[in-house]
């Protein structure tokens, strides 16, 4: 008998159930189909503008920094300014995403931008967010051909571009947007929820930032209008 059958058999014996238990199967199908939400915190159900403000407050509380910009063409300038403000090199590894590639980088000739996955020598990376969750100041990034995951973890400084229309209240709202984009039950290889920079408290319970992942997380928040919690609003 294979390990699989042995284990499933042992589980069924303990549950005192036959493999063909129609009622149990129906209960499971119903549960999977309903995608019932549990209690959603009140703070995750604010109106869109307040949700964006809460996102900012919570992200900053978790040691992320955030700059708001009004127009897409202001993004490269905001990044150049952040880098010089932190004495960081004017060199970026950005996700190969047209939304980032098409920004007017040429207005900042000192800023050197390459696109692709991160390598060990990259000090600063730039990714685009898929969504952001206001209740805890959490970014949601999805992997894909335009979004390599290494950008989120290898460099010392991680910069993320986020639009206000991408800010939702709860994790469930973010999953609803993922389903709207990828279909029910389908996910990209990696979904990263990121709340602030890397940290550890493994030495005497004192919090240190930058354990293995980025030491700094900077969010450039582009105001492109209100967000909202519906799945059809995927900025």
């Amino acid at each position: 008998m294979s390990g699989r059958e042995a284990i499933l058999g042992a589980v069924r014996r303990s549950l005192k159930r036959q493999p063909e238990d129609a009622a149990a199967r129906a209960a499971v199908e119903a549960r999977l189909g309903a995608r019932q939400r549990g209690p959603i915190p009140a703070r995750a159900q604010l109106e869109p503008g307040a949700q964006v403000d809460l996102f900012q407050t919570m992200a900053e509380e978790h040691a992320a920094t955030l700059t708001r910009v009004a127009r897409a063409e202001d993004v490269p300038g905001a990044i150049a300014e952040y880098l010089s403000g932190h004495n960081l090199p004017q060199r970026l590894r950005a996700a190969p995403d047209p939304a980032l590639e098409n920004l007017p980088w040429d207005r900042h000739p000192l800023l050197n931008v390459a696109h692709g996955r991160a390598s060990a020598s990259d000090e600063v990376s730039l990714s685009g967010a898929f969504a952001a969750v206001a209740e805890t100041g959490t970014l949601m990034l999805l992997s894909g051909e335009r979004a390599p995951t290494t950008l989120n973890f290898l460099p010392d400084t991680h910069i993320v571009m986020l639009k206000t229309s991408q800010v939702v209240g709860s994790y469930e709202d973010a999953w609803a947007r993922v389903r709207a984009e990828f279909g029910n039950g389908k996910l990209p290889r990696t979904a990263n929820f990121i709340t602030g920079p890397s940290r550890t408290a493994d030495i005497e319970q004192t919090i240190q930032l930058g354990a293995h992942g980025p030491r700094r997380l900077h969010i450039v928040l582009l105001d492109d209008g209100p967000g909202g919690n519906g799945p059809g609003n995927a900025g």
Partner: protein
Amino acid sequence: MHSTAHSFKDNAKAAVADPQLKRALGHVKSGFIGKRAKAAARLPEFEALRDAARDIKTHTLEHLDLYLERYEENVQAAGGQVHWCASADDARAAVLDICQRVGAKTVTKGKSMISEEIALNDHLEANGITPVETDLGEYIIQLRHEPPSHIIAPAVHLTKDLIEADFRAEHTQFPAERQLSEPRQLVDEARQVLREGFLKADVGITGANFLVAETGSSVIVTNEGNGDLTQVLPKVHIVVASLEKVVPTLEDLSTILRVLARSATGQEFSTYTTVSTGPKRPGDLDGPEEYHVVLLDNGRSQMLAGELREVLRCIRCGACMNHCPVYHAIGGHAYGWVYPGPIGSVLTPALIGVEEAGNLPNASTFCGRCESVCPMRIPLPKLMRHWREREFERNLSPAAVRYGLAAWAFLARRPALYHWLIGLEMRVLGAIGRRKGRFARLPFAGGWTRHRDFPAPQGKTFQALWAERQAGRGR
């Protein structure tokens, strides 16, 4: 992992006599309790979320076979593979087999209690493969050849000067005169050393906080980012997980995530929550080419049958040990196996036998703090009593306990004799102890009087006073 749970009493004695350990454990008490209380108070829905989280797991466990089948289907649909392993041996063999097939020399590891449970590192090393623990706490204890002493803070039993000494002994590539006394310096040095490990690893092994049936995903919840570097850089990602980790949907996952970090570290949310589904997709620029899940039973399917099913709701947050006065006094190593604290006291006897670990459920004052903070509302004291009863039934309790209980039971069934005897004892003790009002020593009570005086009884017994009072009322 080799168990020393049978010598729990000696372990505990040695632990309370260790001043360094006492200093280190002070951080558990001061660190975790206040932070959890603050995080829980800040979320008005917290108690409702605990109820919902409990109900999700209860439902899932009742239908575990069906959710596991669905989970596997979806892992396969995403291009991954599930290896069903009934025992620790099977799981070790499955991991080794994958590593050998791809010619792995170095494997990086994210923090995983299941890999401790199956003693994976020893097995890999014995077969010529170098495991590198990448969670900072796990890395430190790997250098020291120690097991973790806490399920989320594996090196909580160590002070920074001990860690500094280990780093100086191990990291001889750095100048001997470097500054290394501050946590910041220790973290930076470990970061630099482990970076090389991440980049050269052939296989990355992580645990899983959750498995999601709806999507066939594994989920890790971390703060350092080491788990993510472990799984994204090598060409093979192996997840080792036990079968009770499954939850039905992403909504269920979200509910439980809201109570996990708050209960564990008092964070609103952990820094990184990563949901992984299968290997690299066509067009992906990074990610593993193979994705395997080594799914471990190791006795859990048996636990489903009875009262112990409730233990399987555990999400390994560590709140029970963070709030346990016994854990605060002795730390995690004294428990002698992988899982310390109250959850260890109920889980360990189920996994390695009450013969080996029967002492653990006795290490409780039944103060009930563990149950009061458990996000999954596991009735830990009740389950410890379950094991005490099993221990007694199997004649595993010490002779003194058995005879003592038998004598007490004899008396308790004969109330008149009981009252007379207790009354006599009180009068005798009261008479002898009248002058000092306390006893420094007393026959059969050495366990008490070794640490504090026993007060001499004064006046009548409670029963006698009660009877007088009732009689007085009746007048």
